[in-house]
């Protein structure tokens, strides 16, 4: 799971400690950090420049000689082979002595210089998307327009490319394993919420009661508030769930008249920073929101849907589907698929179908924001060997309470960046088992826990108020009835992991700081520890035999079945025969049988 320090900063809303300190805090209180990459170093020399003049190279048909304004007060000459280079265009310039970002991690990074190209001096280069490692485009140099800029940024000759597009960032990669039970932490928001709480605890105690929410991460309005949708018509769309509780929630909507194009540069850069690949504006927005909220979503080409329907159902035995990776899969009756009238158009929660994908011709789209049973998608993925970013999130059990928030923002961003408008009602099919959770806006019922219960298990003596504050910092609702010590905790809607009082113990311990737990040895009576006769006896034999000159050998407990077959002619018999699924190559040359000790 990659998290951007800049995005964390934005959600946490206050100055963060240094990256080293941050990594240390994450290691101690959130999860093991696998890698830290400094994007700023990769892009440190790239500048946004204006091409002032662009003329044909005197000695080469395909080259242009550009004079660029890099804000230095004088024009700089760069020879450029891109067909799209022209005067008055804004581009990205890599000056002499800078490293081409795409080669930054190579054994021999490509360092630019100033040299003559066919008799004309060229200083550095104007970069294409692939050279900047932000996309695969090599057809022309990157053009920067006003639409490409993030909000509140302005275009001036010579400004830093990295700073303008948020690539002066550090990306911290946290081990996925840490978050097996934390689906929310597969999004930037989830990690930011957690980190805000951890940092909050390190600040001086709050005195002013008004400030009890001061340490929480600042959630964007679209994520916090529940969503209601406007009605719309234009494209008929029928949405059905025939897979019952395997699809706890299925939301879908049709949009018309969208224009598919590359995403603005800021979005492409944001995706690249987080390890994703830009594809086109609509797909990029679905991916962007997944990286933010951990909720995957999918876009279909409306006009490719047969019968204007979108159905979640179980696959029929032997049903085939071709997916976006170009491979065809034969499905199993337990696999949940998304389908139209003509058949499967995707494996639910894992990958969309090739027959309904978004292309540059796409005009109308269907957006799907669903929740799938974590055990079901996991089995399907194992069965077919299909692993995707969406699956990584769905198989941890995403909260079905965030679908409407994500759907709302998806519609807003797409209509803003790709044009078009909502052309159907927003279908929302919800498992009745979730009615209570939706009413409470919390996935789990309120938990009532005594501070004593928590303190006993952590060896601490925290007051009820301290405990409440720790959890309030990560958006839990906490209160204690007058005259009662027990605290009632309600987890925020994105937390699916808070089930039992021990989960609150974990939260308190982690947010308070595991390094602050008192290290006391347990006390025990002096009655002697019981000896294990079997172990003692084996140790005895071992020592006797080694004194007699024996060398103790440990061998495998099982053998590959091929080895067993060959050996069956000899006196050696394998004791345990394991499944033939044991990988052949691994075991072919291995030992024969398990004997505890051989002399």
């Amino acid at each position, binding site marked *: 799971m990659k998290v951007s320090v800049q995005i964390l900063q934005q959600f946490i809303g206050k100055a963060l400690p240094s990256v080293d300190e941050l990594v240390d805090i994450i290691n101690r209180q959130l999860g093991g950090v696998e890698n830290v990459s400094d994007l700023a170093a990769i892009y440190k020399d790239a500048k946004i420049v204006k091409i002032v003049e662009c003329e044909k190279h005197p000695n080469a048909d395909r080259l242009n000689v550009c004079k660029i304004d890099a804000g230095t007060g004088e024009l700089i000459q760069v020879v450029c082979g891109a067909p799209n280079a022209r005067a008055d265009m804004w581009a990205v310039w890599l000056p002499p002595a800078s490293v081409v970002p795409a080669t930054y991690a190579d054994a021999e990074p490509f360092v630019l210089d100033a040299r003559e190209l066919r008799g004309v001096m060229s200083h550095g280069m104007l970069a294409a998307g692939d050279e900047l490692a932000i996309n695969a485009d090599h057809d022309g140099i990157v053009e920067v327009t006003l639409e490409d800029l993030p909000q509140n940024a302005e275009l001036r000759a010579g400004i830093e490319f990295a700073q303008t597009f948020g690539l002066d960032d550090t990306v911290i990669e946290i081990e996925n*394993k840490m978050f097996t039970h934390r689906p929310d932490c597969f999004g930037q928001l989830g990690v930011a919420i957690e980190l805000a709480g951890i940092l909050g605890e390190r600040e001086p105690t709050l005195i002013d009661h008004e400030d009890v929410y001061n340490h929480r991460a600042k959630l964007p309005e679209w994520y916090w508030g529940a969503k209601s949708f406007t009605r719309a018509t234009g494209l008929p769309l029928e949405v059905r769930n025939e897979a019952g509780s395997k699809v706890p929630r299925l939301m879908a909507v049709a949009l018309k008249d969208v224009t598919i194009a590359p995403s603005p540069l800021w979005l492409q850069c944001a995706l690249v920073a987080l390890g994703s690949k830009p594809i086109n504006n609509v797909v990029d927005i679905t991916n962007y929101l997944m990286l933010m909220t951990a909720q995957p979503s999918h876009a279909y080409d409306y006009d490719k849907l047969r019968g204007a329907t979108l159905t979640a159902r179980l696959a029929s035995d032997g049903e085939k589907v071709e997916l976006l990776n170009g491979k065809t899969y034969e499905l199993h009756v337990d696999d949940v698929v998304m389908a139209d009238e003509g058949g499967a158009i995707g494996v639910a929660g894992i990958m969309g179908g090739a027959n309904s994908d978004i292309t540059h011709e796409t005009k109308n789209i269907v957006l799907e924001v669903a929740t799938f049973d974590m055990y079901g998608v996991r089995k399907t993925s194992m069965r077919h060997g299909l692993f995707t970013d969406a699956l990584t999130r769905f198989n941890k059990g995403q909260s079905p309470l965030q679908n409407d928030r994500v759907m709302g923002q998806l519609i807003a961003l797409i209509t803003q960046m790709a044009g078009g408008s909502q052309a159907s009602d927003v279908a929302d099919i919800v498992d009745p088992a979730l009615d209570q959770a939706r009413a409470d806006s919390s996935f789990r019922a309120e938990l009532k826990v005594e501070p004593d219960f928590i303190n006993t298990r952590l060896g601490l003596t925290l007051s009820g108020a301290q405990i409440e504050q720790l959890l309030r910092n990560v958006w839990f609702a906490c209160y204690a009835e007058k005259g009662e010590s027990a605290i009632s905790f309600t987890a925020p809607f994105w937390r699916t992991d808070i089930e039992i009082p021990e989960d609150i113990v974990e939260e308190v311990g982690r947010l308070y700081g595991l390094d602050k737990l008192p290290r006391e040895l*347990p006390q025990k009576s002096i009655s002697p520890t019981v000896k294990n006769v079997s172990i003692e006896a084996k140790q005895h034999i071992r020592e006797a035999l080694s004194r007699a000159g024996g060398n103790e050998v440990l061998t495998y407990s099982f053998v590959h079945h091929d080895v067993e077959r060959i050996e069956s002619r000899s006196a050696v018999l394998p004791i345990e025969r394991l499944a033939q699924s044991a990988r052949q190559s691994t075991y072919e040359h291995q030992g024969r049988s398990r004997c505890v000790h051989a002399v």
Partner: protein
Amino acid sequence: MEKIAETEALLLERIAQLDQPRDILKAVEIKQLYARLPSLDPSERGAYGKRINDLKHTLEQAVASIETEKDQAASVPIDVTAPFDVNGSLPSLLATERGTIHPLTREIARLRGIFARMGFVSEESREIDDQFHMFETLNFPAGHPARDDYDTFMTLQRDKDGEPFVAPAHTSTMQHRILLKYHANLEAGEPIAAVVPDRVFRNEDLDARHEHTFYQVEGVYVARDVHAGMLIATLQKFLEEYYGKSLNVRVNPFYFPFTEPSFEFALSCPFCEGKNPDCKVCSGEGWIELLGCGMIHPNVLRAAGIDPEVYTGFAFGCGIDRLVMMKYGIEDVRHLESGKLDFLRQF
């Protein structure tokens, strides 16, 4: 004659009480019998003398039989079927050349020794187990994604639940049995404290750092008022004893289904003490990620009939192969099960 029979009974009885049974042959009673000889009628003397000789012969036999018995009692029995009388001495066999104990079993004996001194009993694991013990009782419900993390070998045969048997991927597979076996400790006001150092299996491709067969020590401690700080303190104490120096330790939050909260446990590098940026053991980081641990999940306690409201406990699992490799600077884990004598004779 009656006198002789009387003396025989008397002496046979006395024989058993003597330190040196042979002394009975010099008993004063025999001399007294001989002394009566001249006073007898000459016709009776032959029979009387023979009768005394018979008596001496009987006593000789009794002495011999007791001596043999005593000799046997004093010698070491070489009984291959029962060599594990822990109070007996070791059989002395003739050495042909220097023998060795495998570094893994040697280390396991050390670990057990330290834990025994800390009050933990040792238990053995098994090489085939059912999924009930490997997963179910450890709070991994069927279909739980964490079951995938273990790359478990399974058999073609199935158990009574219709599930394949497994080659245990952690010695935690013994946790439920331990909680049941020592359940009575709790009522007696004693903790459950046990370690299981034994063999585990994972379906891994082999390389210098990965083996499909390796060793792990599981630890379990349950009592009243056990808290997470005690877990950290216990492991720290153990490691300080193991490495013979004081160490720093730290815990990171982690996730295991069978503990809540769960931690990953690291110790300050005992080899370079964080001072060598080129340290091969800790890669210059100064910390070694060593093991997983946590407070035993209430469902695990409940499955063994222990009330989690009353009792709490901790559990940990630590790879032994890595400890051995770090200690001896072994660069390839595959040596350990290779059966290469050249390798083994170095220990």
